[in-house]
């Protein structure tokens, strides 16, 4: 098979991978914020729900979660297509790690910020959204960046539930053409480029959010 053809087949797969990332990442972010905030501020029973979610998704493998959602849930009368299963499984999985990022970043904002906002008589929600969160967001970006990269890498699991993502296309191409060197070389470059583009975007975001905080740049 010609190299150009290989690239174009793999590109189709890459687009599927990007689609999954583009949908799972917002889901993961929403889960991270909702359950991270519940974990910190909600009444006890809600906290328990959050803890169960977090511990369950962090404590079991992403592949098994994917299998459950795609293969096992139909036995309980819940059938979803492969793409939705992939987005839900990966979104919930990465989101469970994200909750701890949100929680940690909020707790890392110095206590004095909360105290000053009480002294100025801000309401509880003003304290959170106007004082604490803008500073916490900056703390969140680097670890969120790492999670986003984890997500890109984890998408290769979806090839195991029949989705034609980058990994799936690569494997089937390799099986038929045996040109493993070229194929997996291109795959490597594709994944790497996706991660780099994501990283670039994250650095921009961090720079934008850290205005005034005097710690711009990608601090680790």
């Amino acid at each position, binding site marked *: 098979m010609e190299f150009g053809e290989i690239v174009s087949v793999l590109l189709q797969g890459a687009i599927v991978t990007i689609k999954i990332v583009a949908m799972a990442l917002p889901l993961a972010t929403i889960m991270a914020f909702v359950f991270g905030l519940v974990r910190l501020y909600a009444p006890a029973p809600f906290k328990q729900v959050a803890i169960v979610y977090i511990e369950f998704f962090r404590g079991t493998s992403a592949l098994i979660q994917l299998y459950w959602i795609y293969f096992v849930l139909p036995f309980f009368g819940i059938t979803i297509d492969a793409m939705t299963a992939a987005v839900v499984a990966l979104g919930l999985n990465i989101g469970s790690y994200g909750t701890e990022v949100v929680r940690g970043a909020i707790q890392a904002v110095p206590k004095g910020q909360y105290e000053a906002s009480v*002294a100025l008589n801000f309401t509880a929600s003003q304290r959170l959204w106007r004082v604490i969160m803008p500073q916490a967001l900056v703390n969140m970006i680097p670890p969120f960046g790492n999670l986003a990269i984890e997500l890109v890498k984890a998408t290769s699991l979806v090839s195991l539930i029949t989705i034609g993502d980058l990994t799936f296309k690569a494997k089937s191409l390799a099986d038929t053409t045996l040109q493993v060197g070229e194929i997996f070389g291109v795959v490597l470059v594709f994944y790497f480029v996706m991660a780099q583009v994501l990283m670039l975007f994250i650095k921009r975001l961090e720079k934008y959010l850290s205005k005034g905080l005097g710690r711009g740049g990608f601090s680790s």
Partner: protein
Amino acid sequence: MSAPIIEFKNVKKCFGDTVIFSDFNFKVEENEIVSIIGPSGSGKSTLLRILMTLEGIDGGYINVAGESLWHMPWQGQYVPANSKHLHKMRNHLGMVFQHFNLFPHMTVKRNITEAPMRVKGVSRQDAEELAEKLLALVGLADKADSYPNDLSGGQKQRVGIARALAMKPSILLLDEITSALDPELVDEVLDVIRNLVKEESFTMLLVTHEMYFAREISDRVCFFDKGAIVEEGEPEIIFTAPKEERTKAFLNAYIGQS
């Protein structure tokens, strides 16, 4: 004489098993300037933090401007205050912190306008006018658009004072506002307070280790030790002729140091 603007009655405060105040009584009159001095860990900050509603109490009552601070009337009884009551009571109080606690993600101007606008509903234009006036008062008119991290410690603290004043509190709480500053920056901050009390009358409660400042600015000085007022009175008397041995020992140690 009118009722005191601040009154502690049999207040108890513990941190776990540590008792900070066991039966604390204390009054401040309107427009009185009271300095609190005393050794580390004696409960000076805790006193201010209780007033600012940053710490709750475990017993007794506190009145501020004629109303109970930590309790509210409910069906003919006093019950622990809810957040609405605390929100109302906080309007009387403002605080300046040892470590400034400015909002680093806001410009100096926004640090000052944010609370009046969001909490009191002051229009942006009025809030900004007030901010400009206050910045001029603290000598930082040219720093309105800077971010706190670009200021010196003394400048930060002057913004801290302006920010607290913007809410027009009737009681101002100052907790060691110069302790985190290099010695050469202390006076630019203290001068702001000096000018402030010259121009307007304030009820002010300040914890300080600057004895000369306490002496010159206060109507009354309270010497604290182990959660109790050991001795209090006019500054001239406390600083020149203290009666209690513990006060003498504390002041001697200070003079020895500086």
